[in-house]
């Protein structure tokens, strides 16, 4: 049988190419995930450990001490006074770590920046100098190279930092690894302490060279090694979670690859039934035939996996280089070869091929030696759909539906996953019955021209079903993700609109706003509408500083929630408690609100989103002041506004009027960007599976074309032009792709609905299912086009053969 095995491999290797490609892609996916995980971990290690490299001990807040001693912004950091005292005592042997977010002005550009301390001794400095020198004392700073590039700062420039616009000379540029202490601007310790009264100022840790001596109360000292190991464990948990996600997507890709492999073997073995029968005729036992084809499958799987490992490794290292070049802010190290991942990739690829070929090879032994003697038409690839298969499919659908119902009722994620799997399994099993019928319906739309294509596509139900199943999986997941994220995004938007109804608020507690400010704001690019809000500056019990108390009956003009937040019940005051620090009041309290000698008692209601002002009903405002003055301008931005520029412009206007600006735009933009990144990442990861499935369509078509060479020759003899033949095959591929996509879209939307009912509604109560029709339409269109594309190679090959050659070939 060795000769038979080798000859088979030699003769048929080319026909395994597509299946091998599917396995290569799947294996490469696994290896890429491995390399990227290792790279991310290496990057984190480089970054996280850096500040402690020259240190022996690290002083941190004792997590066991309650209440925590840190400042109110960051309670779990060190007690500021104690930390400063410790650094003073240890001098050059200590390096305080922390940072503070401050306003910054570079030339005319205003913005904000993070400022952190730099160690006094060189051994404890973890920033790496790339130009100039380190700061020698007060009034000097070094800037991180990324920020220097972004803001066009060079050595010798001056920047203004902090509320008092402290002027700092830039004496150097540094590169610093990504850690929790990373900042954009670094200054000497004494300069850092200059902002110690700022509410966000904190000292997280102190890296110490040598012995710490007495540790301040509420803090503990650990060895640097201990600290780094422990911190890394936490960080790797994060990377492990990402790796797990990657592995899940790789698993989907491998399942799809398995389907393609199974189909390839099923088709090839069906084509070779006569060979097997002949082997049996000349005396090969069942075991011998079976062993030969199984070894053939194993050889294909091992070979493909062997190619997939270096391909994946190359891609992974390439991606790390790309990420480092494109996004230097993302920490990615260049890891050593992640050998376990490489081995796992190889093993999984070989295993998937072996398992996928198991069923088709079993069919091989059923062939009777007599089949070789019968005329060819008797070797019919058509298989009846077994009763047991139908029964299994039906139970899968029923059990799946019930479980999904239970999952919705009990809001249970695990039950939902199980139900989804059972239901989808049922659909896949039902494929040979359902898919050909759908192909017929879709084919009818093509008219008589598509008749042959339709007939070809349905003549072998199981083959068609497996081919479409591969695509079905990818499309279902893609649709579910698109719909789920659209729903989640809409719900998030709705919540944001409710919590932050006003995009930008300009306000002042000092003088009333000048009359022309409103017009200036309205004239600013990116402002859609703006209103002036009237009120008076009032003292509120429990608040340290006076605040504007206003009434906004026309808030609906600008508010994203329709103005609901500003419709205040008489007798209450609504406060955006998020905008105040050090609050002495809580929702439900009754507080006295005073303007001059007038006074009303109001109940506090907490809402958020319009900034540092109290909202009252017009009649309550009338009891406090006779002629309310303009105290705030509320802005609704245009959808295409550039948030950074707009906020800059408005900050300029506000500064001129002695007012401040509070905006939600950047938070909104970040939220939108995060959602976009998530959507595209998931689509990209699923794209691999979809690509494999499309290879599968081309594969099925290519193998079927080999089988139908004689028919095609006859059709060509009867007058089918080359172009018609190519179109017929393209239509066949497109029919399979479109049916898989339509079915996948339907199931995907249904799954998204279930997920919405089970999960999203729980998290965001007002979420309603959003079906992203344009995106789903694009998915169907792209799938159809890709199907046509997949047919190009087989169709060209089929059309090249002259009719005479096709007729004489056996």
């Amino acid at each position, binding site marked *: 049988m060795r000769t038979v095995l080798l000859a088979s491999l030699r003769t048929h290797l080319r026909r395994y190419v597509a299946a091998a490609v599917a396995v290569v892609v799947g294996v490469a996916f696994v290896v890429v995930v491995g390399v990227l995980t290792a790279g991310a971990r290496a990057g984190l290690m480089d970054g996280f450990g850096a500040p402690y490299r020259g240190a022996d001990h690290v002083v941190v807040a004792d997590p066991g001490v309650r209440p925590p001693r840190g400042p109110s912004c960051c309670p779990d950091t060190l007690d500021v006074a104690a930390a400063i005292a410790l650094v003073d005592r240890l001098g050059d042997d200590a390096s305080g770590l922390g940072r503070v977010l401050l306003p910054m002005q570079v030339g005319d550009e205003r913005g904000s920046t993070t400022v952190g301390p730099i160690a006094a001794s060189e051994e404890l400095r973890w920033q790496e100098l790339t130009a100039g020198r380190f700061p020698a004392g007060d009034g000097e700073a070094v800037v991180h190279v990324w920020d220097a590039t972004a803001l066009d700062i060079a050595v010798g420039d001056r920047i203004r930092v902090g509320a008092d616009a402290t002027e700092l000379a830039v004496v150097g540029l540094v590169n610093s690894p990504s850690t929790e202490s990373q900042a954009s601007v670094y200054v000497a310790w004494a300069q850092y302490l200059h902002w110690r009264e700022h509410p966000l100022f904190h000292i997280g840790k102190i890296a110490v060279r040598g012995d710490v001596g007495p540790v301040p109360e509420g803090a503990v000292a650990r060895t640097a090694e201990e600290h780094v190991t422990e911190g890394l464990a936490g960080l790797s948990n994060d990377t492990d979670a990402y790796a797990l996600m990657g592995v899940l997507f790789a698993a989907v890709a491998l399942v799809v690859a398995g389907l393609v492999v199974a189909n390839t073997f099923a088709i090839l073995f069906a084509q070779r039934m006569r060979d097997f029968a002949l082997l049996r005729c000349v005396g090969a036992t069942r075991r011998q035939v079976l062993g030969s084809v199984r070894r053939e499958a194993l050889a294909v799987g091992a070979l493909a996996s062997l190619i997939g490992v270096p391909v994946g490794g190359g891609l992974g290292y390439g991606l790390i280089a790309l990420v480092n070049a494109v996004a230097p802010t993302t920490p990615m190290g260049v890891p050593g070869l992640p050998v376990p991942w490489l081995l796992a990739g190889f093993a999984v690829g070989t295993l998937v091929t072996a398992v996928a070929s198991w069923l088709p090879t079993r069919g091989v032994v059923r062939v009777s030696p007599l089949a070789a003697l019968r005329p060819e*038409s008797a070797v*019919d690839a058509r298989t009846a759909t077994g009763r047991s298969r139908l029964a299994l499919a039906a139970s899968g659908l029923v059990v799946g539906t019930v479980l999904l119902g239970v999952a919705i009722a009990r809001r249970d994620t695990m039950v939902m996953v199980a139900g989804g799997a059972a239901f989808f399994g049922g659909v896949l099993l039902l494929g040979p019955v359902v898919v050909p019928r759908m192909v017929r319906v879709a084919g009818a739309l093509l008219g*008589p*021209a598509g*008749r*042959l294509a339709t*007939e*070809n596509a*349905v*003549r072998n139900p199981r083959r068609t079903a497996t081919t479409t199943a591969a695509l079905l999986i990818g499309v279902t997941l893609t649709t579910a993700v698109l719909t789920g994220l659209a729903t989640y995004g809409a719900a998030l938007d709705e919540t944001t609109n409710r919590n932050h109804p006003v995009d930008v608020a300009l306000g002042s507690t000092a003088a009333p706003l000048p009359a022309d400010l409103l017009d200036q704001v309205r004239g600013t690019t990116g402002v859609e509408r703006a209103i002036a809000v009237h009120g008076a500056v009032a003292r509120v019990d429990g608040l340290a500083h006076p605040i504007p108390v206003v009434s906004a009956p026309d808030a609906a003009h600008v508010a994203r929630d329709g103005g609901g937040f500003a419709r205040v019940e008489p007798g209450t005051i609504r406060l955006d408690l998020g905008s105040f620090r050090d609050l002495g009041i809580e929702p439900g309290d009754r507080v006295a609100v005073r303007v001059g000698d007038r006074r009303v008692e109001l109940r506090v209601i907490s809402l958020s989103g319009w900034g540092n002002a109290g909202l009252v009903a017009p009649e309550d405002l009338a009891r406090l002041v006779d002629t309310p003055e303009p105290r705030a301008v509320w802005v609704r931005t245009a959808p295409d506004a550039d948030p950074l520029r707009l906020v800059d412009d408005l900050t300029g206007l506000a500064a001129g009027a002695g007012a401040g600006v509070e905006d939600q735009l950047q938070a909104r933009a970040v939220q939108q960007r995060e959602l976009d990144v998530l959507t595209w990442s998931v689509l990209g990861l699923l794209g691999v599976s979809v690509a494999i499935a499309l290879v599968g369509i081309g594969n099925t078509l290519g193998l079927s074309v080999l089988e139908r060479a*004689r*028919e095609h020759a*006859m*059709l*060509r*003899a*009867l*007058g*089918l*032009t*080359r*172009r*018609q033949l190519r179109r017929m095959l393209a239509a066949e591929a497109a029919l399979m792709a479109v049916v898989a996509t339509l079915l996948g879209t339907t199931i995907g939307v249904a799954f998204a609905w279930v997920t919405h009912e089970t999960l999203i509604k729980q998290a965001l109560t007002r979420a309603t299912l959003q079906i992203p029709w344009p995106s789903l339409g694009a998915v169907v269109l792209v799938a159809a086009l890709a199907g046509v594309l997949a047919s190009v190679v087989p169709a060209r090959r089929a059309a090249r053969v*002259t*009719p*005479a*050659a096709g*007729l*004489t070939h056996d």
Partner: protein
Amino acid sequence: MTSTARRATREALAVSARDLTKTYGRGDAQVHALRGIDLDLVRGRFTAIMGPSGSGKSTLMHCLAGLDQASGGTVTVAGTELGSLDDDALTVFRREHVGFVFQAFNLLPMLTALQNILLPLELGGRRVDEETRERAHALAETLGVADRLDHRPAELSGGQQQRVAIARALVTGPDLLFADEPTGNLDSATSAEVLEHLRRSARELGRTVVMVTHDRDAAAYADDVVTMRDGRIA
């Protein structure tokens, strides 16, 4: 010969081949399947091509029918020189002027007999109207397969399949009908029926029929017999 006489001869000729050669492969493996064939086939006649296996019968038929390009020489069918046509034009030419019956695998397995018969019309983009349907039924009636039109090829006997194939070859009303060993797989009674139908196509419908066969009894149905030996007409 006067010019009118020459034109009359030319019009009477359905197929004319001049110095036709066909070689397969190159170098040592080169096979001269046709070595300079001159052949004229007269319109409305039933010609049988005979000869031993490997003598080039099928190759000759493929070249005459425009299924394959000759290596040298010319083939003129119904006044058109086939060498001057590109693949698309040749395909359309076949669709309009030529019908085929092969030894086996004549029918598409997934279409019914009637669909198979109507296939050439459909490929030509012609709408299948009542009239063509009538014609197909009439042909099926003549060929004795009218009661099998809704069956698929797998449900038909070999003889029935061949008769469906003849009906399909005739449905477009072609000038020429080529048959490559149409009775190779049939018993003598069924063979006789099929051959009778081919002869009637020539006699009654005026088609030019060319049949390749090994069988002397089959050749006896033909008006003319051309014998080939080693790529030449003997």
